[in-house]
Structure formats: C-alpha cells, structure tokens
C-alpha cells in the first residue's frame, strides 16, 4: 500500500546533494570552458572568461591543439610518455596485485583479517608520506643503494632521483596499487567456492581451473580496478615532481600545472584539461556503467 504522501520526501532528501553537485561540479566545469574559450587581455595577459557560448573564442584552444598535433607539437611527447607510464604502471600493478588479492581471497584462512588490515593500511597512510619514505630510501647514500651495492662491495652506481623514468613509474605503482587491490580482492572474493569445487569435480585442475574459471570471472574486477587507478594516474603530476624534477619525465599533469602557475596561461591550462577530459570521457563512462552493472548483479 503506497502512501502518496511519501512522494515528496525522497526528492527533498536528495536535493542538498544535487544542488551541491550542480554548484560545485557542474558550474566549475562550465567556468573552465568559459576561461578556455575566453580571451586574454593584451597588457597583463590575464585570462578573461567569456560567458556566452555564442561568443566563445577558440584561439587558446588552437594554441594547445597546435602543440599537440601541429608541426611543432611539443606536447605530444609528454602525452605519449604519460600513456606509456600509465600503461606500464597499471599492468605492473595488476601483476603484483592479482596474486596478492588471490592469496587473500582464497588461501589466507585464519590470517585473512590481519592481511586485509595490512592491505588497507596504505589507505590511511598519507600518499605524500609514502613518497617521502621512498625519497629517503632512494638518496645516494640511502638504504636502497646500500643494499644493492652490499654496503659498497658491488660497484653499482645508480642515482635514482636523477630524472630516472624507472623511479617515476615505480612511484606511480607504489602509490596507486592499494586502490587496485581492494576491488580486485572483492571481485575474487565474490567467486563462489562452490563454483570452484564444481569445476574441480568436473576435472579441472591448476592452470586450467585458473584460465577457464577464475580468470574470466575476475575480469570485471580487473577492469574496474584498472580504470580506477588509470584515470587518476593520467592527471598525476606530483609523483614526477617529487621523485624526478626532470623535464624528461614530464607528464600531462605537469603540463597543466605549469600553465596554471604561469601568468596568462590559465586559459591554455583549461583548454588542455578539456581535451584530456574529452579523451577520458569514454573510459569514465565505462567505469560508471560497469559499476551500475555490478550493483545490479549483486
């Protein structure tokens, strides 16, 4: 028996959040568009937003576009580099996280709670602090070099913090892997044990079991986890900044950040951001759709 008087209740409850999202997510995005498609004053070169879409100017977007695909496209190496770093980092995260998540879901037994707590720990240990720890260890006289050279016996001399792309990718992996572990664990956990037992009863063992039962069932978790870390990684700039400080490891985030702090280039930063978001739109929608499907399934 549905009571008609409940109808207004739910919208009222939901209204604050909706207003918030419109005000502080939607409107800022529109302002970014207006600044990116705005003009720049000639003397101080400060950006002037143009509010009416019919009057939008595309010169700043043109500059950014040129830098990406024009004859002098010096943004492109950074973009490609970002894609490469993210691809390597996500793959490596997957290769490391999958065994760990698998172990925790299937084999941890009575240690499961402890292992989970330890896996969740990085969430509340500040990202910056974890990076800080690594900077410490990677110093020329830090622990890593001491261990590698066995206290000075083996003459390997690697300067980890000298703009080494390996360090930056490792930083990305280190920073983001906890965010992949949990969705992966959840997906593996959801695979019902009875299904596995049934497969075993039918004769599947070891590699076969893994390849034909477990792996296909964990694909949604893999996809969700990968998207969850790949998308934010594309905008990362502080990992490269802290661990490298070299233009040779500059990522898209560094390009945007530089434009923001340079006088007169806020519009270009906005334009670059819009392009990045356009490219990421499809994966973002993919993620929300798969999230919705997962909800339905559960």
């Amino acid at each position, binding site marked *: 028996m549905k009571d008609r*008087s409940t109808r207004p*209740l739910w919208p009222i409850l*939901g209204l*604050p*959040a*909706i207003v*918030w999202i*419109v005000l*502080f*997510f*939607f409107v*800022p995005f529109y*302002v970014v568009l*207006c600044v990116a498609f705005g003009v720049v004053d000639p003397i101080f070169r400060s950006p002037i*937003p143009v509010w009416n879409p019919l009057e939008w100017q595309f010169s700043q977007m043109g500059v950014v576009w040129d830098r990406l695909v024009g004859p002098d496209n010096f943004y492109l190496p950074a973009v490609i580099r970002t894609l490469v770093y993210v691809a390597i980092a996500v793959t490596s995260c997957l290769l*490391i996280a999958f065994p*760990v998540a698998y*172990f925790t879901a299937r*084999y941890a*037994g*009575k240690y*499961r*709670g402890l*292992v*989970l707590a330890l*896996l969740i720990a*990085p969430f*509340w240990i*500040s*990202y*910056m*602090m974890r*990076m*800080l*720890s690594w900077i*410490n260890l990677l*110093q020329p006289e830090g622990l890593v070099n001491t261990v590698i050279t066995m206290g000075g016996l083996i003459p390997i001399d690697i300067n980890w913090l000298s703009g080494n792309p390996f360090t930056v990718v490792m930083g990305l992996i*280190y920073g983001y892997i906890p*965010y992949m572990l*949990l*969705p992966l664990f*959840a997906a593996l*956990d959801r695979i019902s*044990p009875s299904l596995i037992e049934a497969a075993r009863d039918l004769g599947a063992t*070891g590699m076969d079991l893994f390849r034909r039962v477990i792996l296909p069932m964990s694909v949604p978790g893999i996809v969700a986890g990968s*998207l*969850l870390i790949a998308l*934010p990684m594309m*905008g*990362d700039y502080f990992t490269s*900044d802290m661990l490298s400080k070299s233009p040779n490891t500059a990522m898209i985030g560094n390009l945007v950040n530089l434009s923001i702090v340079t006088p007169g280039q806020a519009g270009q930063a*906005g334009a670059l*951001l819009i392009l*990045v978001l356009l490219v*990421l739109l499809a994966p973002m929608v993919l*993620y*929300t759709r798969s*999230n919705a499907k*997962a*909800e339905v399934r559960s």
Partner: protein
Amino acid sequence: MTVSAAPAEAILEESRGSRPRRLRGSSDARAYGLGTITVVYLLWALVPVAITVLFSFNEGRSRSTWQGFSLRWYTWDPTGSVLNDESIRTALMHTVTLAIIATSITVPLGVLFALALDRWRGRIPAGANFLALITFVIPEIALAIGLLFMVTYLATPFGLGAWAQVIGLVTFQLAYPIVICRARLLTIGSHYEEAARDLGASAIGAVRRVILPMLFPAILVSATLVFADVLDDFVIVRYLSSDASTETTSMRIYQTARAAPTPALNAMATIILVVSTLVIVLGWLLYRRWLKRQGQATDLGSFAGNL
C-alpha cells in the same frame, strides 16, 4: 582517493570470519608461493613507512643515517621541532580541521542522497549520481582547477582558502558515502520499512527509526574512509589554498621534501599517521560494538515496541 564501496563493507564483514573457507584439494605449493608474494608485497609497501616513522626519532639532522634515539624533532629542537615550528603546528591543526569539517558535511549529504536515490526514480537523481561517480575517477587536478577558476572568476562569497578547500574536498569525496550507503540499502531492502509503515509509522519516522539505524555501519565506514582520505589529500588543497595558514601536512611534505627536509617532517607525518590510525580504530570499534548491539534489535517485535 577512491575505491568501490561494496568491497569495503564486504571486507569488514569478511574479516569477522563470517564465511568459512575450505582448502579442500588445493595445492600447498601454490598457497605458499602466493603467500610469499603477499608477504614480500606487504614488506615493500609498509617497510618504507616504518623507516620514516623510525627516523622521526633520530637524534641528528639526517633522515637516512641513524644517529641515536631522541624526541628532538617532536619537542626540544629550538626552531625545527613540531612543538617549536609554528608552520608545522599550523599545518597539523589545519589538516585535522579540514578533515573534521569536510567529513561532517560529506557524510550527511551523501547519506541523504543515497536514501533519495534508492526511492526516487528519474533522470535528475540518476544524472546527479552519474556525476558523483565521475568524481570518483576524474583526475583530481581537473576538479581542483575547475574550482580554482570558479572562485577566481565568479563572485563567490568566499575566496581561496579554508572554505574553498572544504568545498573541494566535499565534492571530491561525496561519492564515497553515496556508493557505500546505496550498496547497503540495496541489501537492506524495503520490507523493514514497509513493515514499520504498516504498523503506523510516518514516512519520516520509518526512515529515522528503522532505516538509519540499520544504515549506521555503512555511515560509519564512509565517515572513516572520508576522514582518512581527506587527511591525505594533496591536489585539491594545494590549488585552493591561499597563504601559509591554509597549508596542510601533505603540502608541507611536498614543499619541504623538495628543499631541506629534517626529521621534523617525518615527525609531522608520523603524527598524522597516528591520528588516522586512531580514527580508523575508533571507527572499527564503534562498528563492532554497534553490530553486537544490532543482534538484539533486528527483529520486528522490538521495532513495534519502539514506535
């Protein structure tokens, strides 16, 4: 940062050992192999942090050579210690303040929206939910710059600084309680509420006295996660900060790590670590206590009595 919420809840449930695991027929070698990988991973993940904490108690200025145990960087160093360096104290206070304010706004907003989403069909809430999920995966820098531009070019009643930072943080974290509570609501289903209504409760009463208590664990989990996440945030607070009084610990670490860090930095990071751990432990204890009490209150009879 972000994580799909249903697993978070599931994890907390699972770790109470509610579902038994049998390893009938599994290969021991595989278990040990994977176990080793897991142990190595955990060491790799946590040992650097342990070292950072260790060196916060270092006697000398070095952050890599152990020079003896001392509380120097916490208390008695005249200019550098946490006690004496005002900028570190300001950063700590500001970080915790931001976390408290942001969590107190995010969680109610998100919980209410999750409730509404559960019952209210239509494009508007669906659209808003879609946007909220996007904030989960969008690069944080996009959100930060959007708000930076908005504050700079629109006549907002606030400028850059604490309020802008709070708003940015709430927007970024809003998806957490929405997803977590929504997942929980899906599990709860509608029969408790319908039963309460049948027994005469008003719509609001049913929500307040039936649904919310059942939702409490999810609310607790989201509050804990949001709080811990905000303590750690960097990009948003950096772009929306104004002067030195609106710096957070993550900003201080970033700036100082590039210049001349002393173990005081480690000390500050350790303090924040302790704060987050306390909050997490508190949340966990409350959660368990609540669940134990739940065992008595789940049946409809006592609900009828309360109405």
